[in-house]
């Protein structure tokens, strides 16, 4: 996923469409070893065949050894009826801008863009607004079984499938195999605290457990993994009952606070860290455990970047006694604009994009984890991204964040109130305040 920083990896991604020369590669031919033969020279871009149905596809910018534009080109090459124009939105690091731009375009209901990709937390919002076409007749119940159950749940709003799975990501526990020795990675938070305290006391590492507490979306992701592992919830299944002040949630948030102040296994700095600031000390060998997304794996194993290459393992996040491991589900999924004037072409395109072959291509070339369990077993995937095999069990248990069309407001309240709880230690009153604010939002 991060190979792009390597000079050796050819990446034509940043080149403009018009100037770019690209290689003819069919979607099926990618069973070849990743990275091999991605030459920058090749046949010049073929002119659009006349009479094709023109549709547009808008997506946040992702890249690896290939770009989204190259995959879209492969679709254009693979058939002669449809021509897809790719509109590149800002990268997911600017997801607020991506969201805003999509909302403004979709709200016009003029069918542009025909197909788009959406962060998993926007699905309910877009569906409730009536902007996303229901795809129930495109993907029948049997076909849905080919995806992870958590992702299908996240793509479903009000009983209708309004998004088609693209890739997923989830929070997971990175640990140092050399420090843990023969011990298995911790299964409960208690074990994690114990191991951390022991190893830091012995001077094996500066920090026990690193996570992300910056007042930003990532805090809600960390929060969900903590509270769900204690059988807590933010919203009940009805989407209206707010459960953030329940004892299970309070206990979980208290644990987050305690990692810093009571057990002292996490530095206070986690309160200002998001993904990268917390990843860097871990790959520099300063910490025993790290909660982070799947992108860390390839960096951790890369000797030019990491001083712990070959000494890192990955496991599901720990849980409370009586709970089970839960990871926050992330990733982007496809949607079809409800106002599209080219429904059939759009459906054909997303179906191709979500197909096993294309998912395999995204996995090997862009490092985006498939949403179809079967793709994980492809030998070419394990060859190109060996760690993905170990991620499969983590993804099975991934949990969606609260599913509500008002998510974008709910998350702001959670970020603010949980940050207050973590700073002050007065978890109960912060969560009570969060409860009343979220109730005002979801009931409005």
């Amino acid at each position, binding site marked *: 996923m991060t190979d792009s920083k390597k000079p050796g990896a050819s990446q034509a991604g940043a080149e403009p469409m018009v100037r770019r020369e690209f290689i003819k590669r069919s979607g099926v031919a990618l069973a070849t070893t990743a990275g091999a033969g991605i030459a920058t020279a090749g046949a010049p871009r073929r002119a659009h065949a006349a009479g094709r149905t023109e549709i547009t596809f808008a997506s946040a910018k992702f890249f690896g050894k290939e770009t989204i534009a190259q995959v879209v080109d492969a679709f254009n090459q693979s058939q002669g009826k449809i021509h897809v124009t790719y509109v590149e939105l800002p990268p997911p690091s600017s997801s607020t801008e991506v969201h805003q731009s999509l909302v403004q375009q979709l709200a016009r209901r003029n069918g542009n863009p025909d197909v788009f990709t959406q962060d998993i937390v926007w699905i309910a919002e877009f569906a409730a607004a009536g902007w996303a076409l229901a795809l129930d007749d495109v993907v029948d119940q049997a076909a849905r079984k080919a995806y992870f159950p958590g992702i299908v749940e996240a793509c479903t709003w009000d009983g209708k499938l309004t998004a088609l799975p693209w890739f997923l990501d989830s929070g997971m526990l990175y640990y140092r195999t050399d420090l843990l020795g023969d011990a298995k990675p911790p299964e409960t938070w208690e074990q994690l605290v114990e191991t951390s305290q022991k190893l830091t006391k012995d001077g094996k590492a500066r920090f026990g457990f690193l996570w992300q507490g*910056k*007042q930003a979306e990532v805090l809600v992701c960390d929060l969900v993994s903590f509270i769900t592992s204690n059988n807590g919830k933010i919203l009940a299944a009805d989407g209206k009952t707010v459960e953030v002040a329940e004892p299970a949630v309070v206990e979980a948030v208290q644990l987050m606070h305690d990692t810093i102040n009571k057990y002292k296994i996490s530095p206070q700095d986690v*309160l*200002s*860290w998001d993904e990268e600031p917390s990843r860097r000390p871990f790959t520099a060998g300063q910490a025993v455990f790290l909660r982070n997304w799947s992108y860390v794996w390839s960096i951790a194993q890369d000797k030019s970047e990491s001083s712990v290459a070959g000494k890192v393992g990955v496991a599901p996040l720990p849980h409370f006694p009586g709970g089970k491991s839960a990871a926050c589900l992330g990733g982007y999924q496809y949607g079809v604009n409800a106002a599209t004037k080219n429904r059939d072409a759009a459906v054909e395109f997303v179906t191709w994009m979500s197909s096993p072959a294309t998912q395999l291509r995204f996995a090997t070339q862009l490092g985006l984890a498939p949403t179809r369990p079967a793709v994980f077993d492809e030998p070419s995937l394990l060859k190109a991204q060996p760690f993905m095999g170990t991620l499969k069990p983590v993804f099975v248990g991934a949990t969606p964040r609260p599913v509500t069309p008002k998510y974008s407001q709910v998350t*702001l309240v959670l970020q603010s109130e949980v940050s207050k709880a973590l700073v*002050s230690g007065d978890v109960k009153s912060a969560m009570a305040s969060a409860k009343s604010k979220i109730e005002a939002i979801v009931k409005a």
Partner: protein
Amino acid sequence: MAEALAPRLAGGRERWRVGSWLTPLLLLIPACATMLGVSVYPILNGLWLSFRDTSLISQTDKFVGAANYVKLLADGQYWNAWIHTVVFTGASTLFETILGLGMALVLNEWFEARGAVRAAMLVPWAIPTVVTSQMFGWLFDGQNGLVNHILVGSGLISHNIGWYSSPDYALLTIIIADVWKTTPFMALLLLAGLQTIPRSLAEACYIDGASAWQYFWHVRLPLLMPTLLIAALLRALDAFRIFDLVYVLTGGGPADSTETLSTLTYKTLFSALQFGYGSALATAMFVTEALIALAFALFLIPRMRRTSA
């Protein structure tokens, strides 16, 4: 020849007089049309939206009168952000003025390599803001940052300071970052102001036996005052809209301790897409800025008159 010229000249003068209102208008049109064309619609649109409850998602769009403003006055988060913004604006403007004045006084004197130091002074201002904010994230990182390393190494502090992770330090750190980035602009304006002070004044003072301090306090500073106030006004108006540094470094946290009006407005308008309430926030910001400008003007105009008299 002269006779032939006379009517033309008169005609030329006549045109000038007739055109005395038309010509400046024509000259002003390109600039004003651009500024108004780009700004007026969004500003009026914002004003209009601030009296409505508009959501693209729930498809609501109705007139709600002053409800957004009533909500705003009772909103603890708004006042929290308001206070941070005012503190940030006051502190950063004050520090930038003092530091900028110090730099300008030094750079106004002659010493070896003055040209190079003047150029070096401007470097922080030339670095793209997207980079500055991330750079300060690294430098002030609580565990591995260079700043803590230097401070602990030199014995000034005994423990690492959590610059961004402690509500007591986070706003201060952002002020430091902003002071670093923007002092050059102040120093440049003040240096320019210092250079307009006639040199004969300095010589006259020294001949009268005045000390350097007396010369600074009684001659230079009063003469510099108009420049200083205008520079501070421009700076304060800009500081009031602080956004990038906060958003990248702390996201407004921890515990809302660095939330400013711009980050709050951004979250409300862009993330939550509450156009009505977000527009009310933006309008309230605009009004506060106008009040700051007015206060400066009331302070400034009498002083400028006195100096010019």
